[in-house]
């Protein structure tokens, strides 16, 4: 069952072979990249069809905890399959609707996919760091604008470089204390580390994750980058990069920091929960308020991602099973919903050449699908009933209310943020649907699109890629919303497997065979 490795190997192989077909983007290169992503998505779907026993793949024969092992279970496989779907939709959309991009665009997307799959599956801390760095480099290159000022992306590079360095420093300190890099092993030895080693390494490593998850003080790069990057890259950034950052942050948080345990009282191990919960709440409410004030469509979506990631961070910081299930649901629904919104934004920007959502008024008259998909995306992101976001928020509220005063404050902020966010997004949706005299604006669109020699953006029809991508994602949303049986089971098993205080869970099988035996209370005998 080492098929899961294909998710890392295949994209890398395709990425390196693709330039051989030439740097000019011919239909051959495009078909190759799309085929790879499609095949991987099919593989993921096929693997998910049957039951997915959680299993460990040891790479290169080095037994743990020395070698690098991948832990594959149902929800991580689902997340990787989701990434493939999003990448497929984004790339195809870019080919048909976006500006002319060299072959390197497809290569970078494939590299991003490999890094994403790696970060989700790996069990080794440094290996996780490497995959995160690869994903950042790929995302940076993707979102760099070919013409005009790259200041937003430079700031993004600055943030990720410094956070990468900090994370490396954290890993170094952690390694000097614990002596191992395997996440599970680290969890076992975390109790015995010295106090300064623990909170210094913990802080520095978490800093790396928080920048990628765009949490409030570190989100400075996001709005400018999203605005200048093409919408398909925006889709990848908000769906894939934040998704993998959130999942790996949770893996680090659950395995190494003992899942943060409950908020109060701080039990011995330095638990960051209260700090992270506060940070997440701050991000949630300020992100939502920023959305209310935002006039620019793509910056609006950036702040929506920031706000949703704040909520995911709050759920992770809570730690109890119900909150973690909510977090996983929120990551999936946010990725799905946000990708729909970016597809619609992509079409709207390519039609009107302006990213202010005020300028998109009335676009829904010619192609009604923009309005339908925007409202479905909004419902998913905001968490209206009957769509996955609702299950996420429902279990989050349940988890949070059980956590005393902190939890109740969090729920109150969630209520305010949800109202602000739904108002902001519905406003844009209704703008699309409004009666607006389109003739005045469509006149000037013809000259610019002709002049810029963009891809044949025919005004009336929205391309096949838009329809295929949007319909596939909507199908995923409706399946996950109306009959989420498979998802709830998968998330419950993962939450149980990763929770530190469970009896010996499957996750541990990779190392326990070699680790010294434990005595009755689970204390490691010297």
């Amino acid at each position, binding site marked *: 069952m080492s098929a899961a490795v294909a998710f890392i190997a295949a994209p890398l192989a395709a990425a390196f072979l693709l330039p051989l077909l030439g740097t000019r983007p011919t239909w051959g290169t495009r078909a190759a990249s799309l085929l790879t992503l499609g095949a991987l998505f099919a593989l993921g779907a096929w693997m998910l069809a049957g039951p997915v026993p959680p299993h460990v793949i040891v790479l290169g024969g080095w037994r743990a905890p020395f070698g690098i092992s991948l832990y594959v279970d149902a929800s991580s496989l689902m997340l990787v399959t989701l990434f493939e779907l999003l990448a497929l939709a984004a790339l195809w959309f870019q080919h048909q609707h976006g500006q002319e991009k060299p072959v390197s665009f497809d290569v970078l997307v494939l590299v991003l996919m490999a890094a994403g799959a790696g970060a989700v599956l790996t069990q080794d801390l440094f290996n996780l760091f490497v995959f995160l760095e690869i994903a950042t480099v790929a995302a940076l290159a993707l979102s760099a604008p070919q013409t005009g000022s790259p200041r937003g992306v430079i*700031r993004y590079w*600055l*943030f990720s470089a*410094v*956070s990468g360095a900090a994370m490396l420093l954290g890993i170094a300190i952690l390694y000097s204390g614990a002596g191992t890099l395997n996440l599970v092993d680290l969890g076992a030895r975390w109790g015995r580390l010295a106090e300064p080693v623990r*909170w*210094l390494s*913990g*802080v520095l490593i978490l*800093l790396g994750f*928080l920048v990628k998850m765009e949490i409030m*003080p*570190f*989100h*400075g*790069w996001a*709005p400018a980058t999203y605005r200048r990057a093409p919408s398909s890259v925006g889709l990848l950034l908000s769906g894939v990069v934040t998704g993998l950052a959130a999942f790996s942050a949770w893996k680090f948080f659950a395995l190494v920091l003992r899942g943060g345990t409950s908020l109060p009282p*701080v039990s011995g191990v*330095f*638990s*960051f929960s209260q*700090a992270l919960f506060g*940070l997440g709440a701050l991000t949630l409410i*300020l*992100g939502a*308020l*920023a*959305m*209310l*004030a*935002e006039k620019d469509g793509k910056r609006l979506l950036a*702040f929506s991602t920031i706000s949703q990631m704040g909520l995911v961070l709050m759920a992770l910081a809570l730690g109890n099973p*119900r909150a973690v299930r909510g977090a996983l649901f929120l990551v999936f629904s946010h990725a799905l919903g946000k990708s729909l919104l970016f597809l619609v934004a992509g079409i709207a920007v390519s039609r009107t050449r302006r990213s202010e959502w005020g300028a998109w*008024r009335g676009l829904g008259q010619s192609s009604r699908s923009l309005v339908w998909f925007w409202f479905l995306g909004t419902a998913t992101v905001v968490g*209206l*009933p*009957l769509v996955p976001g*609702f*299950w996420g928020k*429902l279990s989050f*509220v*349940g988890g949070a*209310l*059980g956590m005393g005063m902190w939890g109740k404050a969090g*729920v109150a902020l969630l*209520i305010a943020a*949800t*109202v*602000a966010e*739904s*108002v902001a997004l*519905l406003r844009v949706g*209704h703008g699309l*649907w*409004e*009666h607006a005299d389109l003739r005045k604006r469509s006149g000037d669109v013809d000259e610019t699109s002709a002049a810029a020699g963009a891809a044949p953006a025919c005004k009336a029809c929205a391309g096949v890629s838009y329809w295929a991508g949007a319909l596939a994602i909507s199908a995923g949303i409706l399946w996950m919303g109306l*009959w*989420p049986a498979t998802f*709830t*089971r998968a998330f419950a098993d993962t939450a149980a497997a990763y929770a530190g205080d469970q009896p010996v869970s499957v996750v541990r099988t990779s190392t326990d065979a070699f680790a010294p035996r434990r005595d009755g209370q689970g204390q490691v005998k010297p």
Partner: protein
Amino acid sequence: MTKYLLPALVILPPVLGLLAAFLPRLLRWLLLFLTALATATVLVAVRPGEMMPFSAALPVDALGPALGLHLALTPTAWFFLVMSSLATASFTLFSLVFNDERHDSGIAPLYLALLGFGSGVFLAADWITFFVCWELASVLTLIIVGHRRGHAFSAGLWYFALSALGSLSLLAGAWWIALHNGSFRIDDSLVTLTGWVASGRAAAWPVLGLFSLAFLTKAALFPFHMWPAFAHAEAPDDFSPFLSGVLIKYGIYGLFVVWVPVFFHTPEGAVRTISGIPWPLYILGWVSALTAVVGTLMAIFTNDAKRLLAWSTVANLGYIGTALSAHSVLGTAAALFHLANHMVFKGAMFTTVAAVKWRTGEREMHRMGGLALRMPLTFMTFLLAIIAAAGIPPMSGFASKWMIFQALFEKQLVFQATALFFASTGAFLYLYRALHSIFLGQLSTRHEHVREVPFLMALPMVAFMLALMAVGFAPGLILKPVNWVLASHGLDAVRSNWTIVVGATAHIDFATLFGVFGFAAALVFLFFVLGGRRTKVPMMDNYTSGEDPADWGLTPERYQYAYAFYQPIRVLFSRIPLGATEALFARVARALVRTGSLVADGFASAAFSTWSILLGAALLILFGVLS
């Protein structure tokens, strides 16, 4: 088959709505009307007892093994459903004709879905289904009120923000109780809540507060009374009757589902009482009385017909709230009775105003006038409706208003009764103003050619008129179902047969009242016929106290007194800040948006962003050290 009737009532209309989205205009509105008619006939035929509750399990283990979605037809739900479905059937018939090519607002599919989720709110037996239907209903209402017009959408945002805030706090409240008693079912949570209230447990009041926030915002009671004026006035004209007649009653249904059982089943001494009423209900009483007064004053001074009717709805909900807070059998029955009456006469008024706007395209009251000559049937409907709305005897409004006052006299809530009398006198003022400005006085030259409404549109109007007179003649028509609802809550019924109702301090035979007024009218008509001949004279030919109108350049518009109608009263109330709550909520919204923009641009400057990494790291380290 009856096992699947309840889910069909909830799921079928939205599915039909989806189908309707692809149908041509006329078929869409026809489908809407037929669905509403079918729902009405089914509900009237069915009795609350016979319906089996329906429940389905969704594989989401939010709480227990599987999240259950339960639907049940309780007598309260049955009453609300029958009343609203009958009203909706007539509104949709009106919409069928109203939406010709020129006026099509294109909301038929959304309207259909709203009907489904609306009945879902009433049928829900557990809080999750209740929340799902409630939330979807408010989103659909927002989009319908917006109906592709920017300013209408921002008017609808008032409604949506408040109702979303309310529904999410309802979910939080439901969770709070579910964490303690392990179930989302409404009756379980009410038993727990009653237990908490009875045992005086501290957690009872925040939970009750969370539930009530949802219902107060939807029922537009005092702090949240400003959204109807925006939402009803800007909504599509044929949707306003539904919005103001039916949709705003969900809040009252919520109060019925939570407050009535909780406070009627708590033992006497458990909750501190003020003048014999538990203190939350006493506060609700004063809040509702204040809503009635503010609603009336705002209605008197507004110059837009739909906004006037919206404020009148707010005032009527104030009456219903006050009646409900009398904490007595009579009060609860009066609330239900007035709710049903309001659905009919407010629906009639909004329908007539919509018909006038359909014909003349006018909405500002000072631009209309004299339409009674061109649209007599619409005029008669509006006349009977305002007689009922002002609570004047022969019509249905009087019976429910009288019962409200009987409930207040029984509990000696005299100051609330005074507030309601003040409001009902004010009601007469603004209703007469609407009647005069729209239908009486000079007919302007622009409306010379206006014709009466077509037959199909006249049908619902005649239905409203008959309903008003029938209930006025025999209040038992509505009091019988009301007694079933009271019985389901374990309260004893209001003593009444078809035409006689016994209140706390007096009893009235409504048939004699109707007959007596008829006899007097016949007598006076006899006098009228005996009098001298009368000759018909054109409207413009009247007494101008000796001056020659020709040299003023007189036109019918200039000869119509309708603009600042109650200017003297405006002067009286000039010192009282009437629009204070709207201004307060607008200021709060602007402040939120300003902080948002501060955050949005705050982090954009390059210098600050380098700092924010260091700031963030320092923040995290600080927390690390502290924790």
